[in-house]
Protein backbone atom coordinates (compact mmCIF):
# COMPACT_ATOMS: atom_id res chain seq x y z
CA UNK A 1 0.00 0.00 0.00
CA UNK A 2 1.51 3.35 -0.98
CA UNK A 3 1.82 6.29 1.39
CA UNK A 4 -1.13 8.19 -0.07
CA UNK A 5 -3.43 5.21 0.42
CA UNK A 6 -2.17 4.74 3.97
CA UNK A 7 -2.83 8.38 4.77
CA UNK A 8 -6.32 8.16 3.31
CA UNK A 9 -7.03 5.00 5.27
CA UNK A 10 -5.90 6.58 8.53
CA UNK A 11 -8.08 9.62 7.89
CA UNK A 12 -11.08 7.48 6.96
CA UNK A 13 -10.58 5.40 10.11
CA UNK A 14 -10.46 8.52 12.24
CA UNK A 15 -13.58 9.91 10.56
CA UNK A 16 -15.48 6.69 11.17
CA UNK A 17 -14.12 6.54 14.71
CA UNK A 18 -15.68 9.86 15.70
CA UNK A 19 -18.78 9.47 13.58
CA UNK A 20 -21.13 9.31 16.54
CA UNK A 21 -19.43 11.86 18.77
CA UNK A 22 -21.49 14.80 17.57
CA UNK A 23 -18.47 16.93 16.68
CA UNK A 24 -18.55 19.70 14.12
CA UNK A 25 -14.82 19.63 13.49
CA UNK A 26 -13.50 19.28 9.96
CA UNK A 27 -10.83 16.59 9.76
CA UNK A 28 -7.60 17.91 8.28
CA UNK A 29 -3.99 16.79 8.62
CA UNK A 30 -3.39 19.48 11.22
CA UNK A 31 -6.43 18.43 13.30
CA UNK A 32 -5.31 17.65 16.85
CA UNK A 33 -7.08 14.69 18.36
CA UNK A 34 -7.21 15.91 21.95
CA UNK A 35 -7.62 19.64 21.44
CA UNK A 36 -9.93 19.51 18.41
CA UNK A 37 -11.64 16.12 18.72
CA UNK A 38 -11.97 15.87 22.50
CA UNK A 39 -10.14 12.57 22.75
CA UNK A 40 -9.77 11.08 26.19
CA UNK A 41 -6.72 8.98 26.92
CA UNK A 42 -8.65 5.77 26.39
CA UNK A 43 -9.81 7.01 22.98
CA UNK A 44 -6.22 7.37 21.80
CA UNK A 45 -5.56 3.72 22.46
CA UNK A 46 -8.86 2.67 20.92
CA UNK A 47 -7.92 4.63 17.80
CA UNK A 48 -4.60 2.82 17.50
CA UNK A 49 -6.45 -0.49 17.75
CA UNK A 50 -8.92 0.67 15.08
CA UNK A 51 -6.12 1.67 12.71
CA UNK A 52 -4.38 -1.65 13.22
CA UNK A 53 -7.67 -3.45 12.55
CA UNK A 54 -8.15 -1.42 9.37
CA UNK A 55 -4.71 -2.62 8.29
CA UNK A 56 -5.67 -6.25 8.79
CA UNK A 57 -4.61 -6.52 12.42
CA UNK A 58 -1.00 -5.62 11.75
CA UNK A 59 0.81 -4.50 14.91
CA UNK A 60 2.45 -1.13 14.43
CA UNK A 61 4.02 -0.49 17.84
CA UNK A 62 2.11 2.69 18.58
CA UNK A 63 3.95 3.05 21.87
CA UNK A 64 6.75 4.60 19.82
CA UNK A 65 4.37 7.33 18.75
CA UNK A 66 2.61 7.79 22.06
CA UNK A 67 5.66 7.95 24.29
CA UNK A 68 8.46 10.47 24.18
CA UNK A 69 11.33 10.44 26.64
CA UNK A 70 9.49 7.92 28.75
CA UNK A 71 6.34 10.07 29.09
CA UNK A 72 3.03 9.88 27.31
CA UNK A 73 2.49 12.79 24.97
CA UNK A 74 -0.34 15.27 25.47
CA UNK A 75 -1.73 15.50 21.96
CA UNK A 76 -1.22 14.35 18.38
CA UNK A 77 -2.14 15.73 14.98
CA UNK A 78 -3.68 13.56 12.30
CA UNK A 79 -0.56 14.22 10.22
CA UNK A 80 1.67 12.80 12.95
CA UNK A 81 -0.44 9.65 13.05
CA UNK A 82 -0.42 9.39 9.25
CA UNK A 83 3.34 9.90 9.09
CA UNK A 84 3.91 7.27 11.73
CA UNK A 85 1.68 4.67 10.10
CA UNK A 86 3.06 5.37 6.61
CA UNK A 87 6.63 4.98 7.87
CA UNK A 88 5.79 1.71 9.60
CA UNK A 89 4.08 0.32 6.51
CA UNK A 90 6.99 1.35 4.30
CA UNK A 91 9.57 -0.17 6.65
Amino acid at each position, binding site marked *: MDAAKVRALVQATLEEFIE*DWGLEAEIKPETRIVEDLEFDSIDVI*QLTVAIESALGGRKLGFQDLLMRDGRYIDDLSLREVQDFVAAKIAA
Partner: protein
Amino acid sequence: MTQTFLLGLDGASYTVLRPLIDGSADEGVVMPYLAGLVADGYSATLRSTAHPLTPPAWTSVCTGRTPGHHGIYDFVRFEDMGDDIYFTLYDSRDIRCETLWQIAGRAGKTVASLNFPMMAPPQEVNGALVPGFVSWKHLRRNTWPRELYDRIKTLDGFDPREMSWDFERESQIGDVMPDDELHDWVEKHLPRDHQWFNIGLHLLREDNPDLMALMLDGTDKIQHQAWHVLDPRYWNPSEASHGRKKVRALVLDYFRGLDGYIRELHQAAGPDCQFVIVSDHGFTGAEKVVRINKYLESLGVLAWRAHDGSEAARRRDLANFANLDWTRTRAYCPTPSSNGVVIRVKSDKNPGGVDPAEYESFRAGLIAELLALRDPETGEAVIREVLKREDAFPGPAMGQAPDLTLVLSDHGFVSVRNLAPAVVTRPVPMGTHHPDGIFIMTGPGVRRAQGAVLSIVDTTAIVAHGLGLDIPADFEGRVPDDLFDGAWLTEHPVRIGGQTAAQDGTPAHDGDEADEDQREEVLAQLRLLGYLED
Protein backbone atom coordinates in the same frame (compact mmCIF):
# COMPACT_ATOMS: atom_id res chain seq x y z
CA MET B 1 -41.02 -16.67 18.33
CA THR B 2 -38.62 -16.04 21.19
CA GLN B 3 -38.30 -19.26 23.17
CA THR B 4 -36.36 -17.95 26.14
CA PHE B 5 -35.91 -14.50 27.62
CA LEU B 6 -33.00 -14.22 30.04
CA LEU B 7 -33.34 -10.98 31.99
CA GLY B 8 -30.34 -10.15 34.15
CA LEU B 9 -30.81 -7.77 37.06
CA ASP B 10 -27.38 -6.94 38.35
CA GLY B 11 -27.20 -7.40 42.10
CA ALA B 12 -30.94 -7.95 42.55
CA SER B 13 -31.69 -9.26 46.01
CA TYR B 14 -34.75 -10.59 47.78
CA THR B 15 -33.75 -8.38 50.72
CA VAL B 16 -34.82 -5.39 48.63
CA LEU B 17 -37.38 -6.99 46.34
CA ARG B 18 -39.43 -8.91 48.87
CA PRO B 19 -40.85 -5.84 50.69
CA LEU B 20 -41.52 -4.23 47.32
CA ILE B 21 -43.49 -7.22 46.03
CA ASP B 22 -45.28 -8.38 49.19
CA GLY B 23 -46.36 -4.90 50.23
CA SER B 24 -44.51 -4.86 53.54
CA ALA B 25 -42.65 -1.71 52.48
CA ASP B 26 -44.09 1.55 53.87
CA GLU B 27 -45.10 2.43 50.34
CA GLY B 28 -47.04 -0.82 49.82
CA VAL B 29 -46.62 -2.96 46.71
CA VAL B 30 -44.10 -1.19 44.52
CA MET B 31 -43.49 -3.98 41.98
CA PRO B 32 -46.89 -5.59 41.32
CA TYR B 33 -45.91 -7.22 38.04
CA LEU B 34 -42.86 -8.93 39.48
CA ALA B 35 -45.03 -10.00 42.40
CA GLY B 36 -47.31 -11.75 39.92
CA LEU B 37 -44.41 -13.54 38.22
CA VAL B 38 -43.13 -14.78 41.57
CA ALA B 39 -46.60 -15.93 42.61
CA ASP B 40 -47.28 -17.71 39.33
CA GLY B 41 -43.82 -19.13 38.71
CA TYR B 42 -40.77 -20.76 40.21
CA SER B 43 -38.43 -18.82 42.43
CA ALA B 44 -35.31 -19.65 44.35
CA THR B 45 -32.21 -18.15 45.86
CA LEU B 46 -29.38 -18.15 43.33
CA ARG B 47 -25.94 -18.68 44.88
CA SER B 48 -23.24 -16.67 43.13
CA THR B 49 -19.62 -17.50 42.36
CA ALA B 50 -17.24 -18.07 45.30
CA HIS B 51 -16.39 -14.39 45.11
CA PRO B 52 -19.68 -12.69 44.20
CA LEU B 53 -18.45 -10.06 41.76
CA THR B 54 -20.00 -8.86 38.49
CA PRO B 55 -17.32 -9.98 35.95
CA PRO B 56 -16.85 -13.55 37.20
CA ALA B 57 -20.50 -14.03 38.08
CA TRP B 58 -22.03 -12.84 34.80
CA THR B 59 -19.35 -14.76 32.92
CA SER B 60 -20.54 -17.85 34.78
CA VAL B 61 -24.11 -17.13 33.66
CA CYS B 62 -22.87 -16.66 30.09
CA THR B 63 -20.74 -19.82 30.01
CA GLY B 64 -22.22 -22.26 32.52
CA ARG B 65 -18.75 -22.58 34.01
CA THR B 66 -17.19 -21.43 37.27
CA PRO B 67 -14.26 -18.97 37.34
CA GLY B 68 -11.69 -21.75 37.66
CA HIS B 69 -12.75 -22.73 34.15
CA HIS B 70 -13.75 -19.49 32.43
CA GLY B 71 -10.81 -17.55 33.88
CA ILE B 72 -12.47 -14.22 34.79
CA TYR B 73 -11.93 -13.15 38.39
CA ASP B 74 -12.19 -9.38 38.54
CA PHE B 75 -12.46 -6.25 36.42
CA VAL B 76 -8.68 -6.07 36.53
CA ARG B 77 -6.07 -8.73 36.19
CA PHE B 78 -2.45 -8.37 37.12
CA GLU B 79 0.90 -9.70 36.06
CA ASP B 80 3.85 -9.89 38.41
CA MET B 81 6.92 -8.52 36.64
CA GLY B 82 9.15 -8.82 39.68
CA ASP B 83 9.96 -5.20 40.36
CA ASP B 84 6.49 -4.06 39.39
CA ILE B 85 2.95 -5.34 38.96
CA TYR B 86 1.15 -4.64 35.72
CA PHE B 87 -2.58 -4.16 36.08
CA THR B 88 -4.65 -4.79 32.96
CA LEU B 89 -8.35 -5.02 32.18
CA TYR B 90 -10.11 -8.33 31.61
CA ASP B 91 -12.10 -8.54 28.37
CA SER B 92 -13.89 -11.09 26.21
CA ARG B 93 -10.59 -12.48 24.91
CA ASP B 94 -9.77 -13.72 28.40
CA ILE B 95 -12.84 -15.97 28.63
CA ARG B 96 -11.60 -19.52 28.21
CA CYS B 97 -14.98 -21.15 27.58
CA GLU B 98 -17.60 -20.93 24.90
CA THR B 99 -20.46 -18.57 25.69
CA LEU B 100 -24.10 -19.56 25.66
CA TRP B 101 -24.56 -17.19 22.73
CA GLN B 102 -22.03 -19.19 20.72
CA ILE B 103 -23.39 -22.56 21.82
CA ALA B 104 -26.90 -21.55 20.83
CA GLY B 105 -25.64 -20.18 17.52
CA ARG B 106 -23.88 -23.45 16.69
CA ALA B 107 -27.22 -25.18 17.19
CA GLY B 108 -28.85 -22.82 14.70
CA LYS B 109 -30.54 -20.63 17.29
CA THR B 110 -30.62 -16.87 16.95
CA VAL B 111 -29.49 -14.73 19.85
CA ALA B 112 -29.61 -11.15 21.08
CA SER B 113 -27.22 -10.34 23.93
CA LEU B 114 -27.40 -6.86 25.43
CA ASN B 115 -25.33 -5.19 28.15
CA PHE B 116 -23.52 -8.22 29.55
CA PRO B 117 -20.02 -7.38 30.83
CA MET B 118 -16.85 -8.97 29.46
CA MET B 119 -18.45 -9.17 25.99
CA ALA B 120 -16.18 -6.59 24.33
CA PRO B 121 -14.52 -6.85 21.90
CA PRO B 122 -17.56 -8.68 20.52
CA GLN B 123 -17.36 -12.20 19.20
CA GLU B 124 -19.40 -13.22 16.19
CA VAL B 125 -22.84 -14.46 17.19
CA ASN B 126 -25.83 -15.67 15.22
CA GLY B 127 -27.76 -12.49 15.86
CA ALA B 128 -26.97 -9.32 17.78
CA LEU B 129 -24.60 -8.38 20.57
CA VAL B 130 -24.07 -5.04 22.29
CA PRO B 131 -21.66 -5.35 25.20
CA GLY B 132 -22.03 -3.59 28.52
CA PHE B 133 -19.39 -1.63 30.43
CA VAL B 134 -18.11 0.12 27.31
CA SER B 135 -17.67 3.86 26.85
CA TRP B 136 -20.37 5.38 24.62
CA LYS B 137 -17.75 6.57 22.17
CA HIS B 138 -16.81 3.00 21.33
CA LEU B 139 -20.15 1.26 21.27
CA ARG B 140 -20.36 1.21 17.47
CA ARG B 141 -17.02 -0.51 17.11
CA ASN B 142 -17.97 -3.04 19.77
CA THR B 143 -21.41 -3.87 18.41
CA TRP B 144 -22.07 -7.07 16.48
CA PRO B 145 -22.87 -6.84 13.66
CA ARG B 146 -21.61 -3.31 13.06
CA GLU B 147 -24.81 -2.41 11.13
CA LEU B 148 -26.82 -3.06 14.28
CA TYR B 149 -25.58 0.21 15.68
CA ASP B 150 -27.23 2.10 12.82
CA ARG B 151 -30.49 0.33 13.59
CA ILE B 152 -30.55 1.11 17.28
CA LYS B 153 -29.41 4.65 16.57
CA THR B 154 -32.76 5.30 14.92
CA LEU B 155 -34.76 4.35 18.00
CA ASP B 156 -36.77 7.11 19.62
CA GLY B 157 -34.79 8.62 22.48
CA PHE B 158 -31.61 6.70 21.73
CA ASP B 159 -28.65 8.35 23.44
CA PRO B 160 -25.43 6.35 23.70
CA ARG B 161 -24.14 8.71 26.37
CA GLU B 162 -26.95 7.60 28.65
CA MET B 163 -26.59 3.87 28.09
CA SER B 164 -22.92 3.26 28.42
CA TRP B 165 -20.30 3.18 31.08
CA ASP B 166 -19.30 6.49 32.64
CA PHE B 167 -15.96 5.78 34.30
CA GLU B 168 -16.02 8.97 36.32
CA ARG B 169 -19.52 8.36 37.67
CA GLU B 170 -18.85 4.72 38.48
CA SER B 171 -15.66 5.62 40.30
CA GLN B 172 -17.78 7.53 42.82
CA ILE B 173 -19.30 4.28 44.08
CA GLY B 174 -18.12 3.90 47.64
CA ASP B 175 -17.91 7.64 48.31
CA VAL B 176 -20.09 8.90 51.10
CA MET B 177 -22.49 11.46 49.61
CA PRO B 178 -24.80 13.98 51.24
CA ASP B 179 -28.47 13.28 50.49
CA ASP B 180 -28.84 15.97 47.82
CA GLU B 181 -25.73 14.75 46.01
CA LEU B 182 -26.92 11.15 46.28
CA HIS B 183 -30.29 12.19 44.86
CA ASP B 184 -28.55 13.70 41.82
CA TRP B 185 -26.31 10.66 41.46
CA VAL B 186 -29.28 8.27 41.46
CA GLU B 187 -31.18 10.50 39.04
CA LYS B 188 -28.30 10.38 36.56
CA HIS B 189 -28.37 6.58 36.66
CA LEU B 190 -32.06 6.27 35.80
CA PRO B 191 -31.87 6.74 32.02
CA ARG B 192 -29.34 3.96 31.45
CA ASP B 193 -31.72 1.07 32.14
CA HIS B 194 -34.35 2.79 30.02
CA GLN B 195 -31.96 2.92 27.06
CA TRP B 196 -31.16 -0.78 27.30
CA PHE B 197 -34.80 -1.67 27.86
CA ASN B 198 -35.74 0.25 24.74
CA ILE B 199 -33.19 -1.59 22.61
CA GLY B 200 -34.21 -4.92 24.11
CA LEU B 201 -37.88 -4.33 23.42
CA HIS B 202 -37.10 -3.25 19.87
CA LEU B 203 -34.98 -6.31 19.06
CA LEU B 204 -37.50 -8.59 20.73
CA ARG B 205 -40.31 -7.26 18.55
CA GLU B 206 -38.36 -6.88 15.32
CA ASP B 207 -36.04 -9.89 15.37
CA ASN B 208 -37.76 -12.41 17.64
CA PRO B 209 -34.43 -14.05 18.53
CA ASP B 210 -34.71 -17.59 19.89
CA LEU B 211 -32.74 -16.40 22.91
CA MET B 212 -33.19 -12.84 24.09
CA ALA B 213 -30.72 -11.90 26.84
CA LEU B 214 -30.75 -8.45 28.41
CA MET B 215 -28.96 -7.24 31.50
CA LEU B 216 -30.06 -4.17 33.47
CA ASP B 217 -27.55 -2.89 35.98
CA GLY B 218 -29.27 0.06 37.64
CA THR B 219 -30.13 -2.25 40.55
CA ASP B 220 -26.47 -2.77 41.40
CA LYS B 221 -25.38 0.84 41.04
CA ILE B 222 -28.25 2.28 43.04
CA GLN B 223 -28.05 -0.35 45.78
CA HIS B 224 -24.33 0.31 46.25
CA GLN B 225 -24.91 3.96 47.02
CA ALA B 226 -28.41 3.99 48.47
CA TRP B 227 -28.45 0.80 50.52
CA HIS B 228 -29.22 2.65 53.72
CA VAL B 229 -32.59 3.77 52.32
CA LEU B 230 -33.46 0.32 50.95
CA ASP B 231 -32.51 -2.32 53.49
CA PRO B 232 -35.36 -2.68 56.04
CA ARG B 233 -32.66 -3.15 58.71
CA TYR B 234 -31.48 0.43 58.19
CA TRP B 235 -34.51 2.31 56.89
CA ASN B 236 -36.49 4.03 59.59
CA PRO B 237 -38.90 6.64 58.16
CA SER B 238 -39.59 8.21 61.52
CA GLU B 239 -35.93 9.13 61.87
CA ALA B 240 -35.18 9.96 58.23
CA SER B 241 -34.59 13.56 57.17
CA HIS B 242 -36.57 15.16 54.37
CA GLY B 243 -33.56 14.82 52.06
CA ARG B 244 -33.20 11.13 52.82
CA LYS B 245 -36.91 10.53 52.24
CA LYS B 246 -36.53 12.20 48.86
CA VAL B 247 -33.71 9.80 48.02
CA ARG B 248 -35.84 6.81 49.00
CA ALA B 249 -38.78 8.09 46.95
CA LEU B 250 -36.55 8.41 43.90
CA VAL B 251 -35.01 4.99 44.42
CA LEU B 252 -38.46 3.43 44.73
CA ASP B 253 -39.46 5.22 41.53
CA TYR B 254 -36.56 3.41 39.91
CA PHE B 255 -37.93 0.05 41.11
CA ARG B 256 -41.43 1.03 39.94
CA GLY B 257 -39.96 1.79 36.54
CA LEU B 258 -38.09 -1.49 36.56
CA ASP B 259 -41.35 -3.31 37.24
CA GLY B 260 -42.78 -1.57 34.18
CA TYR B 261 -39.84 -2.73 32.05
CA ILE B 262 -40.36 -6.29 33.25
CA ARG B 263 -44.06 -6.09 32.42
CA GLU B 264 -43.49 -4.77 28.91
CA LEU B 265 -40.74 -7.24 28.11
CA HIS B 266 -42.67 -10.19 29.50
CA GLN B 267 -45.81 -9.24 27.61
CA ALA B 268 -43.88 -8.64 24.39
CA ALA B 269 -42.18 -12.02 24.73
CA GLY B 270 -45.60 -13.64 24.96
CA PRO B 271 -47.03 -16.55 26.92
CA ASP B 272 -45.11 -19.20 24.99
CA CYS B 273 -41.74 -17.80 26.04
CA GLN B 274 -39.91 -19.02 29.11
CA PHE B 275 -38.99 -15.90 31.04
CA VAL B 276 -36.00 -16.21 33.36
CA ILE B 277 -34.91 -13.45 35.74
CA VAL B 278 -31.55 -13.85 37.44
CA SER B 279 -29.06 -11.74 39.31
CA ASP B 280 -25.31 -12.26 39.37
CA HIS B 281 -25.21 -11.83 43.15
CA GLY B 282 -27.31 -10.41 45.94
CA PHE B 283 -26.76 -7.43 48.18
CA THR B 284 -26.32 -6.54 51.80
CA GLY B 285 -24.94 -3.69 53.89
CA ALA B 286 -21.27 -3.34 54.84
CA GLU B 287 -20.56 -1.39 57.99
CA LYS B 288 -16.78 -1.67 58.20
CA VAL B 289 -13.87 -0.42 56.13
CA VAL B 290 -11.12 -3.04 56.14
CA ARG B 291 -7.78 -1.70 54.90
CA ILE B 292 -6.33 -5.06 54.23
CA ASN B 293 -2.95 -3.98 52.90
CA LYS B 294 -2.47 -1.87 56.01
CA TYR B 295 -3.00 -5.02 58.04
CA LEU B 296 -0.63 -7.02 55.83
CA GLU B 297 1.97 -4.31 56.41
CA SER B 298 1.58 -4.83 60.15
CA LEU B 299 2.27 -8.52 59.59
CA GLY B 300 5.56 -7.66 57.90
CA VAL B 301 4.68 -9.12 54.49
CA LEU B 302 4.00 -5.88 52.62
CA ALA B 303 5.73 -2.50 52.20
CA TRP B 304 4.22 0.66 50.69
CA ARG B 305 5.93 2.51 47.89
CA ALA B 306 7.84 5.51 49.18
CA HIS B 307 5.83 8.72 48.87
CA ASP B 308 7.78 11.60 47.32
CA GLY B 309 5.06 14.13 48.09
CA SER B 310 4.23 14.71 44.44
CA GLU B 311 0.73 14.97 43.03
CA ALA B 312 1.32 11.75 41.08
CA ALA B 313 2.27 9.93 44.28
CA ARG B 314 -0.81 11.28 46.01
CA ARG B 315 -3.04 10.02 43.18
CA ARG B 316 -1.33 6.63 43.29
CA ASP B 317 -2.07 6.34 46.99
CA LEU B 318 -5.74 7.14 46.39
CA ALA B 319 -6.11 4.83 43.39
CA ASN B 320 -7.93 1.55 43.70
CA PHE B 321 -4.78 -0.37 42.83
CA ALA B 322 -2.24 -1.48 45.37
CA ASN B 323 0.66 0.96 45.32
CA LEU B 324 3.50 -0.96 46.90
CA ASP B 325 7.24 -1.41 47.11
CA TRP B 326 7.30 -4.63 45.15
CA THR B 327 10.85 -5.50 46.17
CA ARG B 328 9.70 -5.83 49.78
CA THR B 329 6.20 -7.25 49.36
CA ARG B 330 5.47 -10.96 49.69
CA ALA B 331 1.67 -10.84 50.01
CA TYR B 332 -0.78 -8.13 48.98
CA CYS B 333 -4.32 -7.41 47.90
CA PRO B 334 -4.30 -6.06 44.33
CA THR B 335 -7.70 -4.37 44.07
CA PRO B 336 -10.70 -3.78 46.36
CA SER B 337 -13.00 -5.70 44.04
CA SER B 338 -10.79 -8.80 44.18
CA ASN B 339 -11.03 -9.30 47.95
CA GLY B 340 -8.00 -11.42 47.21
CA VAL B 341 -4.57 -11.85 48.68
CA VAL B 342 -1.78 -12.75 46.28
CA ILE B 343 1.28 -14.52 47.62
CA ARG B 344 4.39 -13.72 45.61
CA VAL B 345 6.47 -16.82 45.12
CA LYS B 346 10.23 -16.57 44.78
CA SER B 347 11.56 -16.64 41.22
CA ASP B 348 14.40 -15.20 39.15
CA LYS B 349 12.47 -11.98 38.58
CA ASN B 350 11.15 -11.91 42.13
CA PRO B 351 14.00 -13.02 44.42
CA GLY B 352 12.30 -11.55 47.48
CA GLY B 353 9.24 -13.80 47.18
CA VAL B 354 8.21 -16.72 49.34
CA ASP B 355 10.34 -19.81 48.79
CA PRO B 356 8.19 -22.47 47.06
CA ALA B 357 9.18 -24.96 49.74
CA GLU B 358 7.73 -22.63 52.38
CA TYR B 359 4.59 -21.70 50.46
CA GLU B 360 2.22 -23.97 52.37
CA SER B 361 3.45 -22.94 55.80
CA PHE B 362 3.54 -19.26 54.80
CA ARG B 363 -0.02 -19.50 53.49
CA ALA B 364 -1.29 -21.35 56.57
CA GLY B 365 0.28 -18.72 58.82
CA LEU B 366 -1.22 -15.92 56.77
CA ILE B 367 -4.69 -17.47 56.90
CA ALA B 368 -4.44 -17.70 60.68
CA GLU B 369 -3.32 -14.07 60.93
CA LEU B 370 -6.12 -12.90 58.63
CA LEU B 371 -8.75 -14.74 60.63
CA ALA B 372 -7.31 -13.17 63.78
CA LEU B 373 -8.01 -9.60 62.60
CA ARG B 374 -10.48 -8.04 65.05
CA ASP B 375 -12.74 -5.03 64.99
CA PRO B 376 -11.32 -2.77 67.73
CA GLU B 377 -14.82 -1.52 68.57
CA THR B 378 -16.47 -4.90 69.09
CA GLY B 379 -13.61 -7.37 69.37
CA GLU B 380 -15.31 -9.50 66.75
CA ALA B 381 -13.63 -11.13 63.77
CA VAL B 382 -13.55 -8.94 60.67
CA ILE B 383 -12.88 -11.79 58.24
CA ARG B 384 -15.29 -14.70 58.46
CA GLU B 385 -13.61 -16.98 55.96
CA VAL B 386 -10.39 -17.25 53.95
CA LEU B 387 -10.79 -19.36 50.82
CA LYS B 388 -7.82 -21.16 49.28
CA ARG B 389 -7.87 -20.93 45.53
CA GLU B 390 -7.87 -24.68 44.97
CA ASP B 391 -11.05 -24.87 47.05
CA ALA B 392 -12.78 -21.77 45.67
CA PHE B 393 -11.71 -21.88 42.04
CA PRO B 394 -10.74 -25.40 40.95
CA GLY B 395 -10.09 -25.77 37.25
CA PRO B 396 -7.54 -25.08 34.55
CA ALA B 397 -7.71 -21.31 35.11
CA MET B 398 -7.08 -21.57 38.86
CA GLY B 399 -3.58 -20.18 38.44
CA GLN B 400 -4.99 -16.73 37.62
CA ALA B 401 -6.98 -16.58 40.87
CA PRO B 402 -5.62 -14.86 43.98
CA ASP B 403 -4.02 -17.37 46.37
CA LEU B 404 -6.56 -16.43 49.01
CA THR B 405 -10.04 -14.91 48.77
CA LEU B 406 -11.40 -13.11 51.81
CA VAL B 407 -15.02 -13.21 52.90
CA LEU B 408 -15.50 -10.32 55.28
CA SER B 409 -17.90 -10.69 58.17
CA ASP B 410 -20.21 -8.06 56.67
CA HIS B 411 -19.53 -9.24 53.06
CA GLY B 412 -17.87 -5.90 52.28
CA PHE B 413 -15.09 -5.22 49.82
CA VAL B 414 -11.67 -4.44 51.24
CA SER B 415 -9.80 -1.17 50.80
CA VAL B 416 -6.26 -1.17 49.39
CA ARG B 417 -5.43 2.40 50.39
CA ASN B 418 -2.58 3.39 52.63
CA LEU B 419 -4.64 4.74 55.48
CA ALA B 420 -4.81 3.86 59.18
CA PRO B 421 -6.29 2.28 61.19
CA ALA B 422 -6.84 -1.05 59.45
CA VAL B 423 -10.49 -1.34 60.55
CA VAL B 424 -12.95 1.53 60.94
CA THR B 425 -16.74 1.88 60.94
CA ARG B 426 -18.40 3.57 57.97
CA PRO B 427 -20.50 6.67 58.65
CA VAL B 428 -23.40 5.01 56.78
CA PRO B 429 -23.67 1.37 55.68
CA MET B 430 -22.57 0.86 52.11
CA GLY B 431 -24.29 -1.57 49.76
CA THR B 432 -22.10 -4.55 49.05
CA HIS B 433 -22.41 -7.89 47.31
CA HIS B 434 -23.91 -10.90 49.01
CA PRO B 435 -23.62 -14.38 47.51
CA ASP B 436 -27.39 -14.94 47.47
CA GLY B 437 -29.11 -13.50 44.42
CA ILE B 438 -32.44 -14.22 42.76
CA PHE B 439 -33.87 -16.74 40.31
CA ILE B 440 -37.44 -16.29 39.05
CA MET B 441 -38.89 -18.18 36.10
CA THR B 442 -42.27 -18.44 34.44
CA GLY B 443 -43.53 -19.86 31.20
CA PRO B 444 -44.49 -23.12 29.52
CA GLY B 445 -43.91 -26.12 31.77
CA VAL B 446 -42.57 -24.11 34.69
CA ARG B 447 -43.99 -25.18 38.03
CA ARG B 448 -45.44 -22.80 40.56
CA ALA B 449 -43.07 -23.40 43.44
CA GLN B 450 -40.32 -22.09 45.60
CA GLY B 451 -37.22 -24.15 45.04
CA ALA B 452 -34.08 -24.89 46.98
CA VAL B 453 -30.94 -22.82 46.53
CA LEU B 454 -29.60 -22.93 42.97
CA SER B 455 -26.09 -22.38 41.71
CA ILE B 456 -25.46 -19.51 39.32
CA VAL B 457 -24.23 -22.00 36.70
CA ASP B 458 -27.60 -23.78 36.84
CA THR B 459 -28.99 -20.75 35.01
CA THR B 460 -27.09 -21.60 31.85
CA ALA B 461 -28.22 -25.22 31.87
CA ILE B 462 -31.83 -24.13 32.38
CA VAL B 463 -31.70 -21.65 29.51
CA ALA B 464 -30.01 -24.18 27.22
CA HIS B 465 -32.73 -26.69 28.03
CA GLY B 466 -35.43 -24.10 27.42
CA LEU B 467 -33.96 -23.51 23.97
CA GLY B 468 -34.31 -27.22 23.23
CA LEU B 469 -30.57 -27.83 23.31
CA ASP B 470 -28.74 -30.77 24.79
CA ILE B 471 -26.95 -29.53 27.89
CA PRO B 472 -23.22 -29.82 27.21
CA ALA B 473 -21.65 -32.41 29.49
CA ASP B 474 -19.00 -29.94 30.62
CA PHE B 475 -21.57 -27.47 31.91
CA GLU B 476 -21.25 -27.40 35.68
CA GLY B 477 -24.90 -26.63 36.39
CA ARG B 478 -28.06 -28.70 36.16
CA VAL B 479 -31.78 -28.33 35.64
CA PRO B 480 -33.48 -28.67 39.06
CA ASP B 481 -35.77 -31.67 39.29
CA ASP B 482 -38.70 -29.61 40.54
CA LEU B 483 -38.51 -26.75 38.02
CA PHE B 484 -40.70 -28.24 35.29
CA ASP B 485 -43.92 -30.17 35.47
CA GLY B 486 -44.23 -33.79 34.40
CA ALA B 487 -46.01 -33.05 31.13
CA TRP B 488 -43.24 -30.71 30.03
CA LEU B 489 -40.52 -33.17 30.96
CA THR B 490 -42.26 -35.97 29.10
CA GLU B 491 -42.27 -33.88 25.96
CA HIS B 492 -38.95 -32.18 26.64
CA PRO B 493 -36.69 -34.54 28.59
CA VAL B 494 -33.52 -32.96 29.94
CA ARG B 495 -30.75 -34.30 27.73
CA ILE B 496 -27.06 -34.13 28.54
CA GLY B 497 -24.92 -34.49 25.48
CA GLY B 498 -21.90 -33.19 23.67
CA GLN B 499 -19.35 -30.71 24.85
CA THR B 500 -18.87 -27.01 24.45
CA ALA B 501 -16.54 -26.15 21.59
CA ALA B 502 -12.93 -26.72 22.53
CA GLN B 503 -11.03 -23.66 23.62
CA ASP B 504 -7.28 -23.43 23.64
CA GLY B 505 -7.29 -23.19 27.41
CA THR B 506 -5.10 -20.12 27.61
CA PRO B 507 -6.10 -16.50 27.92
CA ALA B 508 -5.92 -14.55 24.68
CA HIS B 509 -3.60 -12.04 26.28
CA ASP B 510 -0.91 -14.52 27.30
CA GLY B 511 1.93 -15.98 25.39
CA ASP B 512 3.36 -14.99 22.07
CA GLU B 513 4.92 -11.82 20.80
CA ALA B 514 1.73 -10.43 19.32
CA ASP B 515 0.03 -10.81 22.66
CA GLU B 516 2.89 -8.99 24.31
CA ASP B 517 2.16 -6.06 22.01
CA GLN B 518 -1.46 -6.29 22.95
CA ARG B 519 -0.57 -6.23 26.61
CA GLU B 520 1.54 -3.14 26.05
CA GLU B 521 -1.45 -1.44 24.49
CA VAL B 522 -3.60 -2.19 27.48
CA LEU B 523 -0.89 -1.04 29.82
CA ALA B 524 -0.61 2.17 27.87
CA GLN B 525 -4.35 2.50 28.11
CA LEU B 526 -4.28 2.08 31.86
CA ARG B 527 -1.46 4.55 32.25
CA LEU B 528 -3.30 7.05 30.13
CA LEU B 529 -6.41 6.47 32.17
CA GLY B 530 -4.46 7.33 35.27
CA TYR B 531 -4.67 3.82 36.70
CA LEU B 532 -0.90 3.56 36.53
CA GLU B 533 1.51 6.39 36.95
CA ASP B 534 4.93 6.53 35.37
